[in-house]
Every structure is written in C-alpha cells, then in structure tokens.
C-alpha cells in the first residue's frame, strides 16, 4: 500500500534544546563536522487505496492541523514515499 511521508521541523526561530544537546554530544565525541542539529518528526501515513490529489490534500491538511503544532513547528514536506 502506498505511503505518504509528512515531515515536521521545529520553527527555526525557536529553541530546540534536544537538537542543541545532540549537537553538543556529537562535538564531545570529537567531531567538528556539524555545527548544529535540529530534530523534527517524520510521519509515514499508509494510504488505504490510491494516492489521488484529494488524498494528498487531506494529508496536507492533517499535517498542518494535527500532525504539527503551527505555533512551534513547520510542515516541511508532504510527499509520496
């Protein structure tokens, strides 16, 4: 069955302590390749049937209204896997 992927990230202007802690831990391991880390979510929605435009639109709506909290997060992608 087809899958729609929804990606959600914390808003860039807001604090992401988990990302910051992860970046700190990576630096502690001696790697200086990455200067920052941000951690968001990745949803896989299994579609019961075909992926039509209507299904994609519904996924987009769900992503914005339910899977993310628009006050603190952005939906960065809604796409067919």
């Amino acid at each position, binding site marked *: 069955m087809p899958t729609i992927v929804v990606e959600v990230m*914390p*808003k860039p*202007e*807001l*604090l992401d*302590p*988990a990302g910051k*802690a992860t970046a700190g831990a990576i630096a502690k391991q001696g790697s200086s390749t990455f200067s920052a880390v941000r951690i968001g979510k990745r949803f896989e929605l299994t579609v019961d049937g075909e992926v039509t435009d209507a299904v994609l639109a519904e996924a987009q709506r769900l992503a914005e209204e*339910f*899977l993310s*909290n628009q*006050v*603190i997060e952005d939906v960065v992608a809604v796409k067919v896997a």
Partner: protein
Amino acid sequence: MAVRIGVVTFPGSLDDRDAQRAVRLAGGEAVALWHGDHELQGVDAIVLPGGFSYGDYLRCGAIAAHSPIMSEVISAANAGMPVLGICNGFQILVESQLLPGGLIRNDHGDFICRDQRLRVENASTAWTSQFEAGDEIVIPLKNGEGGYIATDETLDRLEGEGLVAFRYLDVNPNGSLRDIAGLTNERGNVVGLMPHPEHATEPGFGPDTPDAMRSGVDGLRFFQSAIESVLARV
C-alpha cells in the same frame, strides 16, 4: 450551594482523582467529566488534570485537544468560565490555543519530579485571587515535557500584559524561557501551569515545609480562588 468544579478525565489522565480531592478539600463539589461527552453537567469551573492523555504520543496534549469535550471547554472558556490546566492540562490548553506558545521536552531530556518554588506573578486571575502578587509558594512539579517556548515577540507581549502567572524560582527545572511556569489569558479565567497545585492540598501528602514533613498546602488556594471567583459572579 457548593460550587461545582468539573475535572475532565481523558484516556491516560492520571491526576484526575487528585484534582477531585483538591476541589473537595477546598470546599467545592467535584464533578467527573468524560472526554468523550459533549456535556459539562452545569459545572461552574473546569480543571484539565495532569497525566499522559493518549500517552502524550503525538505531542503532549495534542490528541486530547481534539476530543469531543474540548469543544465545550473552549466555548465555556471563551464565555468566561474559570478553566485551570495542570501539567498535561496546561499542554492541552496550549494545543487548543487557549494559551499561547508551546511546551517541549525538558532541556536536560529527563522526566523530573521535585518540590518547586514559584513566584505568583499575577494574583488577579480566577485561580490566583487568594494570593498576593509576589507570593512565593512551593508545589510539586513532575513532567518530562515542560519546557515553555514561544517567539520573542510573544514572550514580550506576555510580560508586557502581565500574562505570566507563575515563574520558577531557585531552579529552572525544564529550560522554560524566562522561567515561565504558568500563564493566564487576558481575561484571567484561563490559567495553565506545569507544577501541580492539587498535590499540595492535604497535610501529610504535600511537599516538605520547614515546619513539618510533607505539610505543604500552598496549592489549596488555587481551588479556593476559583470558588471565590465563581461566588463573586453570582
């Protein structure tokens, strides 16, 4: 006539019976409300209790914010009914956008349970009228996702309009911006905070005080305030 305060039970609510006990200890009548109903049973005020509604799985409070009773709670709150969100209840209020900003994972990553000192910043809300602004109180705090965040603009507005209701003292236990522990809406009827006033209402089962072990009852005044504010309206 006893003031009727409803306590909503969502699947995964944990401190609901404790909130009911606190209401009774404050002299009110506790009314159990069910997440799946659209019925507020004529209550005068509402508590959204602590816990892990729906496992807090998507985001804390997110799934509960979409449950049937919340549409009634939101209308009642907009009509001026006193609503208190404690911990998970605060998260539900934020997810319902009755209060601004967001609550995220504690900055240190762990769940934390401690007796927390707070300053009451706003004593003119429905849930804080029995305090004086500047009062320092101790009530238990226990959460994994209590870090308060909002944009600088929002934070400045909250400060400017006096909407920060409580601030952490001594230790900021979760990385909350500007040490914010709780908020009120402009009207002062909707209040949310991460620490648990209902766990500081019965001597012997609250936080330690200099006087005696587990004797702290600073939380009682939240519920007494609500009762007073309901009685003042009728």
